[in-house]
């Protein structure tokens, strides 16, 4: 990231000179959830707007609008909604009772519990350390900063199964550093931390770059210590971005398969995560169980993202409310 602005502290600065945002690294980011930058970009137009139906405009643009919305609706339906609907239908193949039975089976519940627990831990660690990494990358000058910045995205570029092998060779049996984490929940945590590293970093980074340093100086001039300034001034600004990154990391973690498949050990009730349980149920020809747990995962992910949107749009409204 360019941090030239850090050094040039002389003279007046443009008010909110929008720093170039780094491209979003995650292809998996659901629409509508994005770190809150300086501007209030129209949000969720593709998903929400399309579902609500077209507003008929006039003239050439008006003619094109229904077509555009039609394409978007069709595309989203084919790519996202149809498969999800099919999954849901499969899950309720034997009615609500069948679904409930499949989801509440002890092994299924245990796998869901392990998944949520481990993912929550991973999300929290990410919230703290991801913010710290973003902070250091934006605010500090050091050798190899560009390199470190590039490394952040590596877990995205790396196939997750490769990540699993990498971690297994480091933390597996005969670990070269004497730390054996395979087939433990800590192993899961480490694997998931690896693949979710970029989420918080990349959502906090642009907000931090754009953040007005003068606000911190103002707090200092009013007598606030560095910690007080961080807690009362910086953190509220970063809050929505941290939250959004954390939520995305959590959503990614609950569905992760490749990176945990080797190091996790797949021990039921211990380290078997939901995705592995689903795989197992498919292998033993219990598609209903697999679909039911999948729907449960889907619900968890959906609720997480929904909560995020509510919280972030609320804080955004508060700041950008017009007079």
């Amino acid at each position, binding site marked *: 990231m360019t941090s030239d602005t850090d*050094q040039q*502290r*002389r*003279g*007046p*600065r443009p*008010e909110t000179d929008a720093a170039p945002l780094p491209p979003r690294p995650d292809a998996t980011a659901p629409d509508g959830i994005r770190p809150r930058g300086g501007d209030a970009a129209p949000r969720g137009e593709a998903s929400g707007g399309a579902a609500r139906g077209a507003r008929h405009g006039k003239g050439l643009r008006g003619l094109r609008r229904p077509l555009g919305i039609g394409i978007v609706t069709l595309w989203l339906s084919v790519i996202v909604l149809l498969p999800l609907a099919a999954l849901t239908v499969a899950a309720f193949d034997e009615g609500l009772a069948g679904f409930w039975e499949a989801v509440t089976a002890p092994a299924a519940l245990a796998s869901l519990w392990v998944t949520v627990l481990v993912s929550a831990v991973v999300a929290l660690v990410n919230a703290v350390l991801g913010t710290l990494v973003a902070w250091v990358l934006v605010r500090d000058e050091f050798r190899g900063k560009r390199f470190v910045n590039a490394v952040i995205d590596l877990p995205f570029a790396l196939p997750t199964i490769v990540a699993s092998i990498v971690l297994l060779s480091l933390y597996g049996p005969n670990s070269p550093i004497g730390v054996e984490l395979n087939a433990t929940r800590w192993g899961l945590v480490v694997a998931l931390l690896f693949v979710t590293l970029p989420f918080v970093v990349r959502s906090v980074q642009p907000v931090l770059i754009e953040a*007005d340093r*003068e*606000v911190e*100086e*103002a*707090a*200092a*001039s*009013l*007598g*606030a*210590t560095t910690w*007080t300034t961080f807690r*009362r*001034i910086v953190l*509220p*600004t970063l809050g929505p971005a941290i939250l959004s990154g954390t939520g995305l990391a959590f959503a990614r973690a609950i569905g992760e398969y490749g990176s945990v498949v080797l190091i996790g050990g797949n021990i039921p009730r211990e380290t078997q995560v939901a995705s592995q349980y689903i795989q197992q149920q498919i292998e033993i020809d219990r598609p209903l169980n697999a679909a039911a747990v999948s729907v449960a995962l889907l619900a968890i992910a959906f609720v997480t993202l929904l909560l995020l949107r509510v919280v972030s749009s609320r*804080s955004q409204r*508060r*700041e*950008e*409310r*017009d*007079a």
Partner: protein
Amino acid sequence: MITVTSARKQYGAFAALDDVSLDIPSGSLTALLGPSGSGKSTLLRSIAGLEELDSGTVTIEGRDVTDEPPQRRGIGFVFQHYAAFKHMTVRDNVAFGLTIRKRPKAETAKKVDELLEIVGLDGFQHRYPAQLSGGQRQRMALARALAVDPQVLLLDEPFGALDAKVRTDLRQWLRRLHDEVHVTTVLVTHDQEEALDVADRIAVLNKGRIEQVGDPVTLYERPANDFVMGFLGSVAHLGGQLVRPHDIALERDRATALALDAKVPDSPGVIDAVVERVVPLGFEVRVDLRADSGERFAAQITRRDAAELQLREGETIHARAVGRSSVVDHDPALAI
């Protein structure tokens, strides 16, 4: 009293402050005036402790604060772009300095209400900064800075981001506020009109050095050098001398011009010039002229004089200097 002694600050090869020494009397409203890159903001930020000096000292009311962080300097700082705490209401913004000092709630509330009344934001307590205009935000920032009872109030181009009308209103308002509050105030500006308008002392900076310090009248009428003269108001080059445009008189008759000019000692003489343009500026009229030598200059005359002269573009007129404001270096005899 703020005393800056031999302050130096280097950014790479660029000297932002080059051996600057300055005394700012208690209770004064001093403007640091200069073009961008002159070091005026760096000087202000060094007084605040937001910038660390390479060498030199800063004392505030007799206390050496050179090595103190901004938190312990007893200052209030106002930024050009308000630096409002966007997630806090106006009340919380103003109360911030008191809240973190854990002052009793009632005391804080009373103080905040008082200040909001002073800055004219009474009734805006529960608004967020985004709901205020630029001028209101800056007044909120002022109240916030004043809340901690600073020994000195430092303003960094406080009106720079506001439009012209609000800017003039607000600086008048600041002047009145200063007369009420009497806190030692230092204001950075690149706008000479603003400096002349609000400050009772002006320090002119250029290239990291102080060119001249004095009250507005002295600076305007007895500038220490060409730079100060040029920076505080417009100047015209007339026969190799710097003259204020309103110190140029235009005559139709050359003989009259010569006779009148003879009474002015060390004048640049009578210059014949072609009228290029006549620009009405409201109360005054600016006449753009081109001398025989090819040199262009402008004279500023009253509407009445302009009406009497009946100037037409393209005709030749005779210009002479009547003014007494001239650079001290060049012409000590003219200094009052």
